[in-house]
């Protein structure tokens, strides 16, 4: 807990500017769907939508791409930015905390395991903060735009965004698909980014993560982890999609494996004041 207090202060509070990226991602997403709704309202009789419509627009990802000479793959910028901005925030803190005075913190922590656990708690907390800030941004936007604040998507809005298939989700499945799984996927990516930073420079790790996300948007596959947090890739939205329950457990298991893998690597790592 004492180490976590240090990590909270140095890794989150003094880096709170990075959380502005979360606000930006959420805000521009909200303006996107809002503009689209306004356009549709000129010719159709549709409502202003609900908070859930706006949230789904932020995290939905994109439909699975089928190669076609006449329809090229379009990168889902909104979704990519939302996740990438999180990865920017968590990218370099762990290693930078080891440099310079960081070795003092490690020595005073008395244990490499304590240090590793503290960094994990930081990573999880940062990701939760990031999502919370996004959530609040969407919420505030909805309040200011007189959008109903409830967790029910509206059919006419879903139709206007060509996402009416999301209405096939039951309530529980919907919440898992659009709230829990994106968060778990983001947590997994934060943790694996930390682990890979123990092997190669954080900037290269970030590039790998980015490519992994784009590949996830392009192709449906269990190995492309972005799929597991993308509502568009879930049953029943996609007939051949992933089960939300399976994704939930796979992400939890993958995160635990990364946590153990990371500790085993860190246990044997030489710490130098300058990397």
């Amino acid at each position: 807990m004492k180490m976590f207090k240090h990590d909270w202060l140095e890794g989150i509070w003094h880096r709170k500017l990075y959380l502005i990226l979360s606000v930006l991602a959420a805000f521009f997403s909200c303006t996107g769907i809002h503009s689209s709704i306004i356009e549709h309202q000129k010719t159709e009789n549709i409502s202003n939508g609900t908070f859930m419509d706006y949230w789904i627009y932020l995290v939905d990802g994109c439909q699975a791409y089928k190669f076609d000479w006449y329809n090229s793959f379009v990168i889902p910028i909104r979704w990519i930015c939302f996740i990438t901005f999180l990865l920017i925030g968590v990218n370099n803190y762990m290693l930078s905390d080891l440099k310079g005075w960081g070795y003092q913190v490690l020595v005073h922590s008395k244990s490499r395991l304590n240090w590793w656990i503290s960094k994990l708690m930081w990573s999880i907390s940062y990701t939760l903060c990031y999502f919370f800030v996004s959530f609040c941004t969407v919420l505030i936007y909805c309040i200011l735009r007189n959008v109903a604040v409830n967790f029910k998507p509206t059919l006419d809005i879903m139709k206007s965004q060509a996402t009416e298939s999301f209405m096939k989700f039951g309530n529980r499945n919907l919440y898992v698909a659009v709230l829990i799984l994106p968060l778990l996927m983001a947590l997994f990516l934060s943790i694996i980014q930390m682990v890979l930073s123990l092997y190669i420079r954080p900037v290269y790790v970030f590039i790998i993560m980015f490519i992994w996300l784009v590949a996830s948007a392009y192709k449906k596959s269990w190995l492309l982890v972005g799929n597991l947090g993308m509502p568009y890739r879930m049953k029943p939205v996609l007939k051949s999609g992933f089960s939300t329950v399976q994704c939930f457990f796979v992400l939890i298991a993958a995160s635990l494996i990364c946590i153990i893998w990371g500790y085993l690597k860190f246990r044997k790592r030489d710490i130098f004041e300058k990397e």
Partner: protein
Amino acid sequence: MKIEIKDLYKEIKKNVILDNVNITLTGGKIYGIQGKNGCGKTMLMRSIAGLVIPTRGSIIINGKVLHRDISIPESIGVLIENPSFLPRYSGYENLKMLAMLDDKVSDGEIKDLLEKVGLKDAADKKFGKYSLGMKQRLGIAAAIMGSPEIVLLDEPINAIDGEGVEQIRQLILGLRDENRVVLVACHDKEEMQLLADDIICMQQGRIVEKG
């Protein structure tokens, strides 16, 4: 307090940094390590502190094998190379944050410590504005904070002015305690004669002389 180093060997990218180092350090003495740049002094200190994993060999601290029973020595203070702290905080705040991790050091003790190292007037000054000598003094304060059983000081009088050297020397001599091992690395042979009870000479990663 007893530190046993057995057949310690460290290689990094095919460069031998420590080559079969064997030595026992017991409490109540100040050990000095001497040697040219690159002889392995700092790497030996890093190894004892648990910051570096030996390629072969073992370090046993009070019967506990480092990297098997413990990953970091349970009671240790370290000053290795240039001391680095958080520039946006004062010297006092930096020590307080480290003390928070240990929970053994009170605010009053931190202030006394800053006075002992000659930083009483600069306690509230941001670390980013410290001179090299002041940074070094703060590094020493961090290393001896909480009265650790192992104290590793790498070039402690680096960048310290004439008067300050005597102050730091007396501080280090005052650390001599039967329950404490103090290891000091220093280029200055005369200073080493004044400080150390035993001098260890290193060359190319090996101990060439002890006593």
